[in-house]
């Protein structure tokens, strides 16, 4: 289990862009091909069609995967400059490699339940792969999942909940933000009040939209004090791409 996110860019030799992302027990490999020729039925006269395919680690994809695909697809269509590529297709394949185990239950292969905790990993992998494929985008995105767990009458927020936490969670929320601090995706499941959602929003905002500490200064100090709030996703995205660019431009 990785507590801090890990990512590698351009892992597949033949795809236009690819990324492997591992966080909180989930590992996802994403590949992006595009812009390529679209099939007649997918062709839009004025914009590119974004095709997302989610493939589960075990078993064939079902309604659950189709639902995840529709969530990711609608989010990514907002980010990618689809108007620049009329009649084209941008194909994103998200292959789930591992999901965290719950040692206390025997898992069934086909589960009808929703799988919100995987959405941040899928979205993050897709964004990294899109960057790797150099697909023009309006902004990048960061995502996180927050669960509201009630324990002995008090409610607490759990960022990146484990399967055990999810069993006890009252509600699970997935939030994604663009790099301009705009809310991109908000999906919730379970019982919750508006006040609880506000708390979740604040927690997710703190993880996804921490001001980038480009130079050592006040921001860095702030980071240390808020260490318990989870990882800094925006900084992570930035440093991953920076490291890749530095490695690619290094010659001799």
């Amino acid at each position: 289990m990785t507590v801090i996110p890990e990512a590698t860019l351009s892992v597949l030799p033949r795809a236009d862009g690819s990324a492997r992302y591992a966080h909180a027990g989930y590992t996802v490999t994403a590949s992006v091909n595009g812009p390529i020729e679209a099939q007649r039925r997918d062709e839009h006269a004025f914009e590119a069609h974004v095709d997302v395919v989610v493939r589960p680690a075990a078993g064939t994809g079902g309604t659950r995967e189709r639902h995840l695909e529709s969530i990711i697809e609608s989010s990514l269509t907002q980010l990618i400059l689809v108007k620049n590529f009329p009649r084209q297709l941008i194909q994103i394949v998200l292959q789930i490699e591992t999901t965290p185990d719950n040692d206390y239950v025997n898992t069934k292969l086909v589960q009808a339940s929703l799988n919100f905790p995987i959405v941040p990993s899928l979205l993050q992998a897709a964004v990294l792969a899109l960057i790797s494929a150099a697909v023009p985008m309006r902004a990048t995105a960061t995502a996180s999942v927050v669960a509201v767990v009630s324990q002995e009458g008090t409610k607490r927020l759990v960022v990146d909940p484990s399967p055990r936490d999810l069993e006890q969670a009252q509600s699970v929320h997935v939030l994604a933000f663009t790099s301009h601090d705009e809310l991109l995706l908000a999906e919730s499941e379970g019982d919750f009040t508006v006040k609880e959602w506000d708390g979740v929003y604040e927690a997710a905002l703190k993880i996804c939209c921490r001001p980038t500490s480009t130079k050592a200064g006040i921001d860095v100090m702030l980071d240390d004090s808020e260490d318990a709030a989870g990882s800094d996703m925006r900084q992570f995205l930035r440093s991953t791409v920076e490291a890749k660019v530095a490695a690619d431009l290094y010659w001799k």
Partner: protein
Amino acid sequence: MPREAEPSLNEKQFIVQALGEKLRLDGREFDQYRPLELTFGDQYGVANVTLGKTRVLAKVSAEVTVPYVDRPLDGVFTIATELGPMASPAFEVGRPTETEVLLARLLEKTVRRSGALDTESLCLVAGQKCWSVRVDVHVLAHDGNLIDASCFAVVAALRHFRKPDTSIASGQLTVYTPAEREPVPLSWLHSPFCVTWSFFGDDGETALLDATWAEEQVRVSSCTVSLNRHGEICQIAKLGGVPVEAVALLQCTAVALTKAKEFSTFLDGKLAEDAKRRNKGGFMAELSSENDR
């Protein structure tokens, strides 16, 4: 979907001519494999195989189901192969290509029909309950010789896999979670491996092992031999192409045997290494509820 780009006439001739001069594009010997790598995940039954640039991920899962009516004493064992657009944009979701069908068929013949996994041991209650073991083969990158890489990944994943322990007391079946009892390995009988030969030249006189994607597009014929390290051949598939002389084919099987032995020792080493890594405090022997055969 865009069609796969075919090599140009110049490229084709270059490869063939180089092979005629006993040279391969990547400087390998004719009977040399690309570097083979195998990594296991944190979970049981996940094998990640890289053969040069080809990358295959195999994942095994098991669940309790009802056995087939005509085979009440056997468990269910399936191998699912799906080539998605990740391997190449030419592959479409839900529309199997010829490569995919042939790959699935070969894996089926090599692993399932050769009786590598004892399906009778998957039976829990005759006619009512059995294990359904499923292997999912995900091709992440396709750079030739998919068959050998996939077969190796499937065998490695199955040998690495552990299914939940079960017990039957007074007709009541209990499936233990990993927290209660350490999962147990599958009853594995032998490890078959595929070795694919590609033939070049007008009469197929040049034989290559582990062809890359470029070479596969130029070859005139191919032959897959599946065998285990004892030299027991599970199947030989030569699907069309130019005819190859029987003596040459015999020679191919002889070399295939040495390759199968190499695969076998490599896999055994990797499995032992992984078992050592998992057995941190040395408690594995105590945790295990498995009986020695």
